[in-house]
């Protein structure tokens, strides 16, 4: 775990020192909510529409972070130094997935406030415990699959195209499960209970794609 923590600490320090990913993701999310606010011509959204608007926005914001996940290593030559270190290369996977998870949490805290003010037709407070559970599971999906796709994309010249073209289709099942799980939370008459089936689907997605990403990540770093 120590190499993972060293790598994660470095990524968080770099983002704190020269913020790039989190501000971009945040600005994108808030701008999208403003566009939805005026674009659909409604002050309030509830139910499945609210869940869809929130989660699709977070998914696209995550793509921005995924695009930049390995940029510091790639552009500054640190990639080779890390690859030459006597560490299990999956430490790299855990560190990058951990960094993306932290970025997503930071973005979601502010984005959720913006979403509540601009679009959400119900009080956000009663929905929070359930929403946090769904977002944690969704963030695990975004972080693991995102790290895998980012590692694949960074080796190519078309990095900016590879991430959305490969990442979005892979993340569709997670988005569907998260949106279905969230929809009752935003019901107009007050939050309903989360359908256990969709939480289970999301959990299984995390498990299967997490293991898959873990298994193939090292091969992506090979020459």
């Amino acid at each position, binding site marked *: 775990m*120590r*190499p993972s923590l*060293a*790598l994660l*600490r*470095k990524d968080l*320090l*770099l983002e704190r*020192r*020269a913020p790039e990913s989190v501000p971009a993701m945040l600005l994108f999310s808030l701008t999208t909510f403003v566009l939805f606010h005026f674009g659909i011509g409604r002050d309030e959204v509830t139910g499945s529409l609210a869940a869809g608007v929130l989660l699709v926005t977070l998914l696209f914001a995550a793509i921005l972070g995924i695009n930049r996940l390995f940029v*510091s290593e790639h552009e*500054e*030559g*640190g990639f*080779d*130094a*890390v*690859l*030459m*270190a*006597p*560490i299990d290369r999956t430490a790299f996977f855990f560190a990058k997935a951990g960094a993306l998870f932290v970025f997503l949490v930071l973005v979601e805290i502010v984005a959720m406030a913006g979403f509540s003010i601009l679009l959400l037709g119900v009080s956000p407070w009663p929905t929070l415990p359930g929403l946090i559970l769904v977002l944690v599971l969704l963030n695990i999906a975004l972080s693991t699959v995102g790290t895998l796709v980012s590692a694949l994309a960074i080796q190519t010249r078309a990095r900016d195209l590879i991430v959305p073209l490969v990442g979005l289709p892979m993340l569709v099942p997670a988005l569907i499960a998260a949106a279905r799980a969230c929809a009752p939370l935003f019901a107009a008459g007050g939050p309903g209970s989360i359908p256990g089936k969709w939480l289970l689907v999301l959990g299984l997605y995390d498990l299967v794609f997490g293991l898959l990403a873990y298994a193939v990540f090292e091969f992506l770093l*090979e*020459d």
Partner: protein
Amino acid sequence: MATAPAIELRGVGRRYGERLALVDVSVSVPAGATLVVFGPNGAGKSTLLRMLATLLRPHAGSARILGEPLPKRDWEVRGRIGLLAHEGMLYRDLSARENLRFHARLHKLPERRVEELLERSELLPRANDPVRTLSRGLLQRVAVCRSVLHDPELLLLDEPRANLDPAARALIEPLIGRVSGRTRVVTSHDPAGGLAEADIALGLRGGRTELLAPAAEVDTIAIEALYR
């Protein structure tokens, strides 16, 4: 009993797509010796270094580094090799101290090793400045510290003295020079300077071996001919 060579390459080749970057390169370097690689730009010097650093796999031939075959057991030797490449392999927004501490953690080294190197390379006054604010010479000194942080047995140096003034060169000499006692592979465009520190001279052109001989048997004219 004779000790195994630190580097043993037999007929090694490497291509990038259709382009051959290295063709049938064979060389043996005893432990503690210095191999200096000469050749014009695009001759395959950096490819050779990256292959020795386990970052590129050979596409032909066999390679054995520090007694271990590559790429089969490259994980065995990774932590025993130091690489000083053209780019500093440093994070620009971190300070010299933060960069070195990060690599020390990856190599499970105590932080006092970082302080020792910062002091030896006279970087302490600028140790907390982001490396993007350092001059090229200072940046190169930080990169040198990073490459020798884990006290590697094999040191791979891509034009290590570029950007350094004579005082800085003298400062890093104990770390990466012959006196460090490490096995070294050094790329150079300086025939006289390169031969002065070489035990073995290797000349590459177009990825092929044009010259391979003990440095004592090579003169600067033969090296200069590689560039014509």
